[in-house]
């Protein structure tokens, strides 16, 4: 007897980082690391479940920028170069650690892991989007979309044309990749402003997610709290609220699973630990030491002394933690069912990159969880939002509250002393884009190319990732550069169009650099 539903959501997103003008570019490693440590391990988990006949459900965002990078041939080639070097390094490590009993099996583990990453990557024709699509087509995975470049919508509220462009470009891009319209969207940073549901409805999107207070502080009161979705008043778009109890178990820096002393220590990487000449070919060509992904220690304790990682112990802990998570969801569902008189839905969203990249054992934990939920019990059932809405079409109508899942729950992460300067420029560019759309309807040829590129540059400048990095206050130079570069490119296109002097050669160059959304139509920005 099903007492409640569990809706796991992994939000997969990386900002668009692609620099064909440089042979090596440090920030491109975000993608390569996420492929090796998160996306491939997740795909391997899904493959294993399907081949073992285990039924499972999971919901994932693949942000349009992430899809664009995973599908890009230049980045695919560079990923192969990257993983080949890692395989080479892990081979050297197997030899180097020959007299270190506790490290040698780990060097072998990395060799196997990297080799498997390359195999999986090549099996899907170097494009992992096909892998995710396969599990969506099998009905196990529901892929939702996101803002085109992960712009933070609440701080675009004064230019809703840009919110509309973020949503429409994303939905159209999704359709071109997956062959159907997206049913749901992950609002970037969970940032919701009342009224934006109208823009979602226009794009045919049926549901989105908010942080807990988005529903709990909505008007009128949500009868079931966050444990049932609501429909937005006036538009009927469904909003699912985040459950914080399940979040806390995985995410909390104090009590969360990833801090277990048997799990792998993220901050001890051979890129920093080993002798310079040996490691030099595998770090940045300038000699700047970086993480390689090969890490030999377990968290061990709170101090700086670290003991070697023992894969078997970590595996046992992951199984225990999966069991603990399931047990707590059973208790939670049972209690809520009594209180509500119907099965609750427990929505547990996480950044996808938490699994594997930050929490090395995360994908393994998920694997155990899926298997236990499918085989060991009947009280909770995994479900996707679309399935839930199909089975439970009658829901309360409210207006959810403005909210985000960022620091302190609203806009502060992206609007503080270190990053508030960007908005006068972003808003001015939005205004200019709207002006261009009105001045040049139905443009063709070179003018159309310029207008489309103007929208690409505007969208890229809007990525919340830049404001986020500026907000954290460390390693900000790249984020400053990206914000300015895209705005400067936008402004130049705007001036060139207005003065009827588009420079085709220059335009072609930035089309080549910022090449995402090939089928974009500038006219969506209105």
């Amino acid at each position, binding site marked *: 007897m099903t007492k409640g539903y569990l809706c796991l959501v992994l939000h997969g997103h990386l900002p668009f980082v692609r620099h064909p003008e440089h042979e090596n570019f440090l920030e491109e490693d975000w993608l390569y690391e996420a492929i090796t440590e998160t996306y491939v391990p997740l795909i391997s988990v899904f493959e294993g479940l399907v081949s073992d006949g285990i039924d499972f459900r999971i919901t994932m965002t693949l942000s349009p920028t992430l899809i664009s990078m995973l599908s890009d041939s230049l980045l695919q080639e560079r990923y192969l170069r990257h993983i080949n070097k890692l395989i080479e390094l892990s081979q050297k490590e197997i030899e180097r650690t*020959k007299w270190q009993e506790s490290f040698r099996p780990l060097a072998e583990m990395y060799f196997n892991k990297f080799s498997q990453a390359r195999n999986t990557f090549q099996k899907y024709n170097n494009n992992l989007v096909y892998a995710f699509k396969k599990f969506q087509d099998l009905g196990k995975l529901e892929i939702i979309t996101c803002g085109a470049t992960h712009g933070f919508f609440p701080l675009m509220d004064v230019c809703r044309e840009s919110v509309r462009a973020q949503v429409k470009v994303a939905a159209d891009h999704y359709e071109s990749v997956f062959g159907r319209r997206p049913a749901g969207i992950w609002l970037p940073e969970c940032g919701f402003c009342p009224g934006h549901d109208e823009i979602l409805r226009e794009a045919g999107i049926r549901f989105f997610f908010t942080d807990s*207070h988005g*529903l709990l502080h909505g008007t009128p*009161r949500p009868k079931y709290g966050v444990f049932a979705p609501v429909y937005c008043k006036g538009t009927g778009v469904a909003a699912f609220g985040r459950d914080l109890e399940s979040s806390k178990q995985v995410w*909390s820096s104090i009590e969360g699973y*990833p*801090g277990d002393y048997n799990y792998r220590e993220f901050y001890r990487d051979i890129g920093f630990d080993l002798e310079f000449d*040996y490691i030099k070919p595998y770090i940045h060509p300038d000699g700047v030491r970086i993480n390689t992904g090969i890490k030999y220690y377990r968290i061990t304790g709170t101090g700086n002394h670290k003991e070697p990682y023992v894969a078997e112990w970590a595996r046992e802990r992951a199984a225990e933690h999966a069991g603990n998570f399931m047990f707590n969801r059973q208790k939670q569902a049972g209690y809520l069912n009594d209180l509500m008189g119907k099965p609750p839905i427990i929505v547990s969203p996480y950044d996808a990159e938490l699994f594997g990249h930050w929490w090395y054992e995360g994908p393994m934990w998920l694997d155990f969880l899926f298997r236990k939920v499918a085989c060991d019990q009947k009280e909770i059932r995994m479900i996707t939002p679309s399935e839930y809405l199909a089975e439970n079409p009658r829901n309360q109508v409210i207006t959810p509250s403005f909210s985000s899942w960022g620091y302190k729950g609203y*806009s502060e992460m992206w609007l503080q002393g270190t990053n508030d300067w960007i908005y006068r420029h972003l808003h001015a560019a939005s205004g200019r884009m709207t002006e261009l759309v009105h001045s040049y309807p139905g443009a063709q040829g070179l003018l159309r190319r310029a207008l489309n590129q103007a929208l690409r540059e505007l969208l890229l400048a809007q990525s919340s990732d830049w404001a986020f990095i500026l907000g954290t206050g460390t390693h900000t130079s790249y984020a400053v550069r990206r914000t300015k570069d895209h705005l400067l490119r936008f402004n130049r296109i705007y001036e060139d169009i207005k003065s009827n002097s588009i420079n085709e050669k220059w335009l072609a160059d930035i089309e080549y650099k910022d090449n995402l959304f090939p089928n974009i139509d500038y006219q969506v920005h209105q």
Partner: protein
Amino acid sequence: MKILTKIKERLKKVVPAKLKSLKAKKKKPALKNPASSVSKDIPSFQETIAVNTKFSHPEDMRPKSSTPQELPSSYDQDKIILQVRDVRWLHTYWELRNQTIEALKNKLGDEFRRAKKILRVYDVTNIIFNGNNANSFFDIQYNDFANSWYIDTSVPGRSWCVDLGLMLTDGRFITILRSNVVSTPLDGPSWITDEEWMIPEDIFARLYGMGFGLGKSSPVGGAWQQRLKQGLFSSGITSSPVRKEVKERKFWMKVDCELIVYGATEPDAKVTVQGEPINLRPDGTFTLRYYLPDSKQIIPVKATSADKLEERTITPIVTRETR
């Protein structure tokens, strides 16, 4: 490219100026203060060099483009924008055209200089604001150089509008710009319940606390504050959500040893080290690198000729002892 051209132009300008001053010196050796004309030239020349070095620095990998490197300081518009930061704080930024300021100066004369620069913040909750019907308002005096401001409204769940204006000495307020209207969210559950979906207060309280992961018996009041303390906010790939690195700010040192074993034989020979076959380079040389723990390592290196008729074994013995 534009930058380089600019620098070239500046160099051109500087050089004739220097020539000019030299010429001047030649013509008029009794110039009253020749040092001053030289000292004027030198800084500008150094400055040019500094600019030149900055943009041709090898570490600056960015490609040169003909787009400017810095964003414009203004967009030639009169505009004030209001945004919500959280339940009680607003952010506003504005821009005024020079001609707008000049027009005000002309109109107000001396009064302009004496007037206070004011942001008037109107509570426009549940009304259609016409400039005179606000529920209430308060004023913030801002300084001459500000073009943005964070405003503490103190109360959540209200609607706000801001006028940028001047307070004249006689107490009159002149509006220069009016912002958009924004609404701040509630910082607790709504008091509005709907009849069809009504729920008893005690059950809602339990659901409310549970939604924030606070267990079954947390009171409604304070639950949101408690939730804020928990953290659990998103952070993405660029910074760790899980646990930050512990940095011990103490003096420290690390020493470790690795061992390199290398050699050469016929390129087609078979070589084993401690019994395990190894690969030779095309010229028959080989290099092996090992982490060397505290121990005694006996390392027999055995080469066998391709025809298996000859064999050589050399055995280095290495002891590491750390004290």
